């Protein structure tokens, strides 16, 4: 076999660069997702700082109009697709197998493939900066501005090719985790004993599987419009720019829940641990998550209330949008009730989770405000919307993720993140984020549109813009504190016990960090909070050490296949002959993948 497959990984070493490039271990892949997610998050944050610096005073001249337009477009694309989504992926890669008592995901090599394809797409998209061709059309890229007649150069092709690759990556990961969650739960782990986090990931995976194809269709169509003279979105050729908006938002709205649901899952794990009591209304929280997901597919046109929608669709989409407020409200009440009667420890992780509830609530309230189409016609495309999305995505998604960092760091790496630094990090984020984004509500009410690189002096917008800019620098300092805490943890000796927080879920049953095979013995689950059940009933998991544990060997092929896809993507931007080379590489990798021995 080795003659046919020169690329078989011979040594199964656990360190060094090759062990990372060929790994199929869900924990290492989670770490890779985390590192790249944080790096892209920092880059996208830097873009935001430039934006805020330009807007700190009226008639800003630090950045030209064109660069500014690129900055806000790339800030959104990178934060959403390359920052928050992969940081969420880092958690579900690390945690889902551990939480359901499995040794890995259902398809470990596919898991590696989704990471490398994500990285390919991310690099392709961000490399547009190097060529001065960063997309400058807004992250939802409304046609016909994106057509060749109005956006010359390659910027929009970078957008299409990059997002197609990222979509492939997310779809693969989603299918993998759906299969994993359905099939690989430990004995006794019934559906309604699953941690809420696992439920939320199950929902997210379905959202991605169902919504990404719609975006991909739109991306292929705009690519064809630009490069092969089709007219899908070109009104002068009989196409309809509204079609793009429908396609984009049928993807785009579920995408919002893709970003927020993992954090809702994290919060639902962190709060019970630090309140020292089980989650309140488990099934209500789960069903609220499910109904948010279902309703999430029925609200996309609320992004299009100003496009000339007739009265009936306006009313219907308004109703469905407001309806989402109900399960969201239920979740907030249930989290509060989880804290009620507890004995709350204010660790950094818990502060971030409680902060999440407060900030996400504000985002939810403003969301209900513009669910009313007449009000929306005054708020749409103003800074009010910018405030809303940042309360949901920064106050919500990012706060959840940071809660997760402080909570699971000892499990992931055997080391604690410094609590003192963590608290400084939290307060800088909490105050900084409110200083940055709360005044944006006011700016919106004062009539300031989004996506403007300058504004006049006499409009009353100066003060709040200045406050927002000061807040954004505070967020940057908060991020530096976080990185310092990470560095400090990296420098200390691993000292974390298996279950430092006395948490109830299975990932805390194994060592910190977990062995490659996760569990020496697959645990048996008797209750929704298995470790608390074992603790209270004095059950000690029996240890059998001589069990033969079969783990999948590392493989080059996921990386190779992703490189093939990347070359294919580069071909879309240059000449299709290069795409052909990419396709050959993909086929070679599939061939090797199929024939590769699995033990």
């Amino acid at each position, binding site marked *: 076999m080795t003659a046919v497959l020169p690329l078989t990984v011979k040594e199964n070493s656990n360190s060094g660069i090759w062990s990372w490039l060929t790994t199929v271990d869900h924990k290492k892949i989670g770490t890779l997702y985390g590192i790249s997610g944080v790096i892209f998050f920092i880059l996208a944050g830097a873009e935001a700082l430039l934006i805020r610096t330009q807007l700190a005073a009226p008639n800003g001249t630090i950045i030209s*109009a064109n660069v500014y337009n690129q900055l806000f477009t790339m800030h959104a694309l990178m934060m959403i697709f390359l920052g928050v989504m992969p940081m969420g992926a880092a958690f579900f890669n690390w945690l889902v197998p551990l939480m359901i008592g499995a040794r890995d995901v259902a398809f470990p090599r596919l898991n590696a493939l989704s990471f490398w394809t994500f990285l390919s797409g991310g690099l392709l998209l961000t490399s547009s900066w190097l060529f001065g061709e960063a997309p400058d059309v807004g992250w939802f890229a409304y046609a016909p501005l994106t057509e060749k007649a109005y956006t010359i150069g390659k910027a929009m092709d970078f957008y299409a090719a990059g997002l197609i690759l990222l979509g492939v990556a997310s779809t693969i990961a989603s299918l993998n985790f759906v299969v994993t969650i359905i099939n690989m739960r430990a004995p006794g782990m019934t559906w309604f004993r699953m941690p809420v986090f696992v439920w939320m990931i199950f929902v997210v995976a379905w959202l991605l599987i169902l919504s990404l194809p719609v975006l991909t269709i739109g991306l292929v169509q705009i690519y064809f419009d630009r490069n092969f003279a089709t007219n899908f979105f070109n009104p002068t050729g009989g196409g309809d720019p509204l079609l793009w908006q429908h396609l984009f938002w049928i993807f785009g709205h579920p995408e919002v829940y893709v970003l927020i649901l993992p954090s809702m899952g994290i919060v639902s794990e962190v709060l019970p641990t630090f309140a020292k009591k089980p989650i309140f*209304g488990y099934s209500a929280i789960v069903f609220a998550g499910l109904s948010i997901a279902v309703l999430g597919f029925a609200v996309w046109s609320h992004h299009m209330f100003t*496009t000339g929608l007739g009265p009936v669709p306006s009313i219907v989409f308004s109703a469905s949008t407001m309806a989402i407020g*109900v399960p969201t409200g239920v979740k907030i009440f249930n989290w509060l009730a989880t804290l*009620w009667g507890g004995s709350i420890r204010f660790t950094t992780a818990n502060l971030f989770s409680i902060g999440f509830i407060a900030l996400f609530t504000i985002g939810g309230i403003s969301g209900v405000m513009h669910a009313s189409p*007449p009000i929306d016609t005054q708020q749409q495309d103003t800074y009010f919307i910018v405030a809303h999305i940042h309360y949901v995505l920064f106050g919500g998604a990012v706060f959840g993720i940071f809660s997760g960092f402080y909570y699971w760091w000892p499990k992931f790496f055997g080391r604690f993140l410094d609590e003192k630094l963590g608290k400084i990090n939290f307060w800088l984020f909490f105050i900084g984020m409110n200083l940055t984004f709360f005044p944006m509500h006011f700016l919106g009410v004062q009539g300031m549109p989004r996506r403007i690189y300058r504004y006049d002096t006499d*409009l009353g917008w100066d003060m709040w813009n200045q406050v927002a800019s000061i807040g954004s620098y505070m967020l940057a300092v908060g991020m530096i504190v976080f990185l310092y805490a990470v560095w400090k943890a990296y420098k200390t000796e691993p000292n974390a016990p298996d279950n430092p927080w006395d948490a109830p879920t299975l990932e805390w049953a194994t060592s910190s960090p977990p062995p490659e095979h996760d569990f020496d013995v697959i645990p048996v689950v008797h209750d929704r909070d298995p470790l608390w059940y074992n603790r209270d009933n004095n059950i000690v998991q029996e240890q059998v050490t001589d069990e033969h544990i079969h783990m999948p060997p590392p493989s080059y092929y996921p990386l190779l296949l992703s490189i093939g896809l990347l070359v294919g993507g580069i071909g879309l931007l240059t000449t299709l002959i290069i795409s052909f080379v990419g396709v050959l590489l993909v086929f070679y990798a599939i061939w090797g993948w199929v024939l590769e021995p699995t033990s």
Partner: protein
Amino acid sequence: MLRFRKTTFFLFVNSIFSSFLFGCSAWQSDPQTTVNPKSDMAVLIQDLYVLVFWLSVGVFIFIMGAIVYVSIRFRERPGVEAKQFHGNTKLEILWTLIPILIVLTIFLPTASAIPKIKSDAPANALQIDVVGKQWWFEFKYPELNITTANEIHIPVNRPVSFNIESSDVIHAFWIPQLGGKVDMMPGHLNKMWFTPTEARKNAYLGQCTEFCGTSHANMLFRVFVDEQEDFDKWVLSQQQNGMKAQSELAKEGEKLILNNIAFVTDNGTAIGCVTCHKIEGTNAMGMLAPDLTHIASRSTIAAGRYENTKENLIKWISNPSRMKPGVSERSGGMPIYEDYLTPEQIESIVTYLLELK
């Protein structure tokens, strides 16, 4: 320490909240405010907004209060154990019903306001066609035979009906004090109407709010709501042909504009002012750029971006792209005339333009 943190948190929330209330009244005087409605439709929206705003304030106080209360009351204390319970069906039903009720309180007035806002304009409404272009607004009064750009006059207390379109990319048409925004879609005709209720000297500010390319931030317009007699005067003057040049300098400029089809040859296409601009009653018949017949009567140039002064006009014609990024770079954009004309020639052109009252 814990106490201190809770207090700061509370003070913080409190300060945000009070600045919000304080701000509300202050913002009403801002020129582009959304909360000082001056038309029937804008008032309809404002009424809804006020209802939703107070409900939101209520929910905000309740949830934030609950978070602070729970955090203090149930903080870890020696000798106090956490109570172990999993749920409470009655409570859960209750707090499913509460959001439903809140949402219904918003939804019902919303659903009754939408048909009013989206209704057809009354038959006596003044018709105005508006077309969004990169990066300016063209206005036509089909019944009055007036064409203008970036600035319109409408009479107070008479319904105005806008027929809204775009000739290139998507823009949005928004005059916050007079109504909600409506997208300007190429290939779709959108409509909007309202009755302005307050005539005033200062213009109502409008702005494009759908990102439309490089100079999206510089795509502004002005609406003057006039008393009927002022409006009638304005209509009469706008219906006149362009005036003949008076001063010597202006005559030179007039000659330069009208006798030269081209200052620039762009890929074999001759480009001069008259290729794109129109001055009614002359041979300037261009349809691509703002109508100049009465340019001196407008208060701003470059789509509301600059005051209409001699200095700004000279700068504009010399190098429009420096005044408004992207204008010369886009296909069919205005050439950089300082490359083709002497400063004296440009000054004479501007003198002529300023006589086009």
